[in-house]
């Protein structure tokens, strides 16, 4: 089967891979670029564990083909911290115990970051609806919501 | 003698009794004696039971000690999720 050469940018670095047209962006990130931070929880866009941004837009990487990544800017959980410095969301997730098993965490962090870039001061309801596509089975969401709200406050410069 | 309390479904394997007096100084010994007295209970013990001794539940502890004063119950074996 003939493969297609794709050149893209992942977390600011140029990346290239060969893929079959039917391979998803998630497959390509995980199996070809060995960036396994994005997870496959469902493969049908229902769980959000594979969330990444493409040209700044939050998407499920399981619902996008690898070939569609040509020329795009992809960011993943692996690009969230700046060097050794965690993003405030990452720090707050640890502080608030906002994860148990942690497998949904990369997707939730990527999705939350996308929200705060668009809306730095979301209400609890706005946040819950924004994250409705990110399933978490461990936490009951309570501590996740608290962590994101707290990170948002910190990023706005408000005292925690 | 140590008294073993059976759950009600075991009565049909123990001549209708729900308590059986047995000899032994460990859980293993009293279970062996129980099966000796009521062989019909053999498959039950073989399939696995938990034993409670004075309120402490011993899932699989044939070595555990029992005394004549011990309160002993046979229990279904537990699992967890």
């Amino acid at each position: 089967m003939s493969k297609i050469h794709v050149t893209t940018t992942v977390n600011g670095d140029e990346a290239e891979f060969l893929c079959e047209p039917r391979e998803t962006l998630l497959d390509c990130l995980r199996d070809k670029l060995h960036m396994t931070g994005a997870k496959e929880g469902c493969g049908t866009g229902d769980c959000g564990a594979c969330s990444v941004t493409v040209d700044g837009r939050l998407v499920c990487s399981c619902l996008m083909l690898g070939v569609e990544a040509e020329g795009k800017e992809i960011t993943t959980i692996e690009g969230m911290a700046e060097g050794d410095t965690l993003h405030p969301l990452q720090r707050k997730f640890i502080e608030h115990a906002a994860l148990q098993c942690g497998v949904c965490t990369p997707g939730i962090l990527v999705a939350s970051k996308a929200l705060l870039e668009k809306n730095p001061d979301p209400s609890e309801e706005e946040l819950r609806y924004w994250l409705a596509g990110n399933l978490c089975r461990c936490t009951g969401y309570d501590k996740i919501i608290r962590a994101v709200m707290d990170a948002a406050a910190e990023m706005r410069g408000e005292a925690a | 003698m140590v008294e073993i309390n059976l759950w009600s479904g075991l009565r049909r394997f123990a001549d209708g009794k729900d308590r059986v007096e047995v000899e032994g100084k460990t859980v293993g010994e009293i279970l062996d004696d129980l099966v000796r007295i009521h062989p019909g209970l053999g498959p039950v013990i073989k399939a696995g039971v938990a034993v409670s001794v004075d309120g402490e539940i011993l899932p699989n502890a044939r070595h555990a000690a029992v005394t004549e004063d011990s309160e002993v119950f046979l229990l279904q074996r537990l699992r967890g999720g």
Partner: protein
Amino acid sequence: MALDGKTSDYKQIGTTPDRPDGLDKVTGRARYGADIHVPGMLHGVVVRSPHAHARIVKIDATKALALKGVKAVITRADFPEGLEGEDWDIQENCMAGEKALYDGHAVAAVAATSQLIARDAAKLVEVTYEVLPCVTNVDEAMKEGAPVIRDGAADYSVPEGLHPNVVRYFDTGRGDLDKGFAEADLVVEKSYSTEAVHQGYIEPHACMGQMGSDGRGEMWVCTQGHWFIRRMSAAVLGIETTKLRVTPSEIGGGFGGKTTVFMEPLSLALSKKAGGKPVKIVMSRSEVLRSTGPTASASMDIKMGMTKDGKITAAHGTFRMQGGAFPGAPVDVTTMLAFANYDIENVHHIGYDVITNRPRQAAYRAPGAPMAAFAVESTIDDMARELGIDPIEIRLRNAVKDGTRSTFGPKFGPVGLVESLEAAKAHANYSAPLGPNQGRGVASGYWMNWGGETSASVAISEDGSVTVSVGTPDIGGSRASMALMAAEAFGIAYEDVRVNISDTGALGVNEPTHGSRATYASGLATIKAAEECIGKLCQRAADKWGIDVDAVVWEDGAAKPSGPNAGDHDPLTIGEIAAEMGGTGGPISGHYEGSPTGFSGSFGTHVVDVEIDPETGHTTVLRYLVVQDAGKAIHPDYVEGQFQGGAAQGIGWALNEEYIYGEDGRLQNPIFLDYRIPVASDLPMIDTVIVEVPNPGHPYGVRGVGETGITPPLPALANAIRSATGLRMTGLPMTPPKILKALKEQGNG
């Protein structure tokens, strides 16, 4: 040198430091089951039956094997014969023999050089089936004329005259029911049902197995218990246990569903057939839902009697459960715990374990308890209403406490049901005002907990820091709990402890992280192993000082002379002793091996407020409160997390989650779109109160807290809906169509 007398002056226990694996898990670095990649790796895909019940006439893999890149195809013929009992059940479930027993049952598997080729090849495996009549409902499966799924599967317990699909029978209880019901002023009888639900962990099962022609193998797998995986895989393959070494990956949720094997032995068999190349198998979500182990569905009849003061005089329950095509529905636990919250003299349970054409059930958080709680706590709620007694008050009048004889036999030690009820009553949520179409529900729940086989090891490093090795995978922050307990025991900083989850080659046998046992049992093991280390550290100090070890105490991370020698020598810190240990007798470590039996159950009480849309039957959860006894909360944040997670799963079970089968026995909703677990916008904040009635069977008083939390939500939601609408919903899930239908019938009635 001992820790005797340590009660409330904890320095570490009860604090909430960052979890040790936090950084890995927020950066995407943590490696889960599917995240492994090794050179030469093949990909495996399982071929599954589309039929609920079918004889396998022929399997032809010719076309699959002809596909370029395909390295092996296996069927049941590649596995040993002659297994018995549980081992046979596991083997048969991993790979069907003569018959496919449920939609999704594995019938073959392929390994190829890429995932895509393996998937293509799986489609080319030609299986000829003779489709047989099927049954998926528990009540139907017990009826005369129901298709017999496997004759001879019943064990000794089943009385004559029952359908062959009834494979186990339970009859437990005590007292005199007739007398008890005669003493009652109010007797209520009602029938209830619950649907099967799935654990719904977000990480699908994944493993990588490698086995050479010498029969030696390695496995990487996401599991709650890798020794279980080792034992079961070895049994299925007919090899010695120690030929396998199993390493657990990080695990993306389990809730009981990752305590057994499904495709793990297949990866090893494929590897062996493919010349020893490692084979990775990752399930899809639909495979997870169709082919792993959901919990049982239940059909139940409850009869309870009470005096007008609300004292329970008698209780009888009949519980029919199907756990798929194999024995094992958790009706054994149900018949122990159904009425266990209460002090009841006359109590009886009947249980039926029934096989059907559904996947083999696996444990799911407090297996067997939530269904019974739904039936019993709903009945009690109705009786409280009828008698005009507050729902918390009626539970307080019957609640078990220290010294109460349990409904299953032995007496309880110190337990926290009364305390949980009192705390719920005192919480602001219990008196929050309710608006139109809103209602409040209360329910209590119990899980007995578990000790289990446990090995742990604690080693002192050259610089005095401590390595703890345990065998229970960290599924929700247990590394943090172990580190806190070790730090507390040694009197050192939390940061100076590193906790490893060891593979099967590094420790003795461990049961999985299940039964709410990890913090209890591995924690106890960690403390005991630390105490052994401390004894050795004190000995080194005593030797150095030339005094008797009995005259040395361990305080704040250092050995100190005591008694007549007190003050004679400067304390020797753990770091100072460690720095010299090579020359003072060698490395220092401590171990614990045992099956601790001092576990003690955890009771909880939940209070939920709902609003029902009277025109659509939609339920909105407005407020939720979890109160539960933790014995002693080691890391309170993660204790709360267990409470909240259990509540959320219970809410899902109560309202929307269910296995939906068609007439053809096929699962209709094997996708998260239609298997509806709660999403963030479905839930409110989940308030928590941690009650602490210390467990005397743990050095720090710990009770396992993981499972109890899923038990009260089912009846609590039902009771809240009753409070809001007057409707007693007796079947789960309480979906909008069911509630709207009941509302209309109520309006017409």
